[in-house]
């Protein structure tokens, strides 16, 4: 009893329980009452919590998801299939809403990203245009001066200097363009802020959706197990062990029942439709 849940649950049950008398229950038409010891109730709740914490706890699940998971486990343990079905329907509704919200957000995010990229491309294009102009004018001036000096020394080599201008300009433009992209400043514009906000919301909604899907899976696992049937506690045929009270008497009674049923069975075989037809 070291688990603190035991103490708190016990007091919680006591404080919320409705006290009634047997005579009042009788007046209200209750003839039989199933009594569950508070210790059993506690252990059921604790088991439900432990089951869900063992599975979801280490994955950093939200408190809401843990609570919902514990609720599902409790419903499974007490065999409340109708409320389990209600929970299933509620989770399916939540899943649909989340999927709808997520789809809208993802649409908005895609639009914002597109607009941001267009802005960046436009800004890059404008910056590159300006740089190109300045580069070309600088190169033109530099090559003009170089040509003049080369013509003085070797008039035939002036053409070779001219031929270098275009490749050099192109190479520099590539380098400039790369430098411009790498040196892009952190987002500050409204559209950039909007994208960031949307990305955070999408991440949060996706996490919520994942948790809802996990909870749904938890309910469905129980439902499919339920549809497959509930396993018997016995692996083999039992029978009397031999150390029960009045075992000889019981054996004799069981033998009588068997004998009587064997007779019924042979009558049944005689009266079967095949035999009637024959």
């Amino acid at each position: 009893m070291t688990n603190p849940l035991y103490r708190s649950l016990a007091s919680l049950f006591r404080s919320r329980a409705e006290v009634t008398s047997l005579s009042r229950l009788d007046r209200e038409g209750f003839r039989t009452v199933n009594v569950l010891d508070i210790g059993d109730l506690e252990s059921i709740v604790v088991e439900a919590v432990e089951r869900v914490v063992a599975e979801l706890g280490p994955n950093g699940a939200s408190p809401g998801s843990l609570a919902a998971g514990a609720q599902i486990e409790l419903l499974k343990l007490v065999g409340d299939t109708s409320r389990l079905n209600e929970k299933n329907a509620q989770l399916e509704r939540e899943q649909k809403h989340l999927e709808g919200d997520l789809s809208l957000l993802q649409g908005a995010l895609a639009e914002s990203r597109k607009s941001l990229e267009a802005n960046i491309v436009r800004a890059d294009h404008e910056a590159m245009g300006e740089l190109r102009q300045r580069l070309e004018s600088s190169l033109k001036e530099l090559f003009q001066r170089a040509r003049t000096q080369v013509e003085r020394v070797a008039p035939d080599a002036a053409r070779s200097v001219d031929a270098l201008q275009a490749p050099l300009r192109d190479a520099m433009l590539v380098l400039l363009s790369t430098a411009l992209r790498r040196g892009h400043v952190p987002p500050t514009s409204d559209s950039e802020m909007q994208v960031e906000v949307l990305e955070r919301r999408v991440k949060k909604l996706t996490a919520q959706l994942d948790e809802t899907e996990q909870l749904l899976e938890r309910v469905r696992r129980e439902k499919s197990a339920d549809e497959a049937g509930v396993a018997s506690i016995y692996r083999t045929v039992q029978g009397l062990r031999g150390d029960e009270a009045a075992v000889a008497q019981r054996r004799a009674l069981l033998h009588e029942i068997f004998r009587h049923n064997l007779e019924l069975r042979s009558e049944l075989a005689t009266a079967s439709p095949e035999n009637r037809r024959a």
Partner: protein
Amino acid sequence: MTPDHDDKKGDSTRPKATPEKAHGVLYLGIDLGTSRTSVASSNGVRETVSSWVGYPKDVVSRKALKRDILYGDDALAHRLSLDLYRPLASGVIQHSDAPDSAEAKAHLKAAQDLIRHAISLAKPRADELIYAVVGCPAQCSSKNKRAILDAVRPVVDSAIVASEPFTVAYGIEQLTDCLVIDIGAGTTDLCRMHGTFPTDEDQVTNAFAGDHVDQKLVELLGKSCPGASFTVHKVKEIKEKFSFVGDTRDPVHVDLPVNGKPTRFEISQQMREACRSIVPPMVDAIHKLIASFDSDFQSRLKNHVILGGGGSQMGGLREMLEEEMRERLGEGRVVRVDEPVYGGANGALKIAHDMPAEFWEKLK
């Protein structure tokens, strides 16, 4: 749309269809009653359903209800759209005295569907052997027992029928010198247990049971509640809530419609009179079984009377029987089983558990 006699559509849980049965043994104890059918099983599932079976009257009803067969209170709630059957009456399958009649066949089919439904409520797994014991009324004829076996066998691996009061006694391990009284809806069965298998002389069945109380109450309310309209179903519901036989009890008030307006009636006297109507025949039967018992053991029998079945829940019944027995037999002690609704099913489950493997095998 009466049930199709060869129809097996309702047979959705047919574990026999699967060849592999390697994973365990599921024992079922079934109490096939006139009013309620209960099942207890070795997987911990216990269910009870009122013994009503309904088939949609026509295609329109079937489409609206989206089912081919309805059971229990669900069937009763939709009775206007259904051909409704309560397959057992007075402890036997209705109309079984004329087995070739359409009514007999329809009731037999309904009984078979009800048993299959009860088995499906126990949630059996396809990979487990299913061994079932079905409790049937003490004086159920061999023909009816065969019909019950015929209904059960296709859905289980091996089945046994046993007398209902005997299953109750076996369930509470009272096999010697006791008198079991099982008060159902159709019959009250009394069975004298003396360590051996009870014979016909050890058992008495009469029709003074729950249905008799309902009819009596209908008659009394008809006289004492002028203008009130009610059905036997409503009266049964009232009885299940307020039944008592004692002299003192809080007044019983019910609301019944008079010209469509709910009107309050005080029906304590009528309730008491209707419930008490089954007591004298019960005491007569107790008297008969005790008086015809070995005189050296009569005292033990008188002081060991066990009440079971839904009717045993009537307030004050135990005390009244003791009083009547003291008056007529000099002494008497009566106890009620802990779980009247599941007493028969629990006992049948215990028999299933204790039955040796070779018996189950031979009855396959």
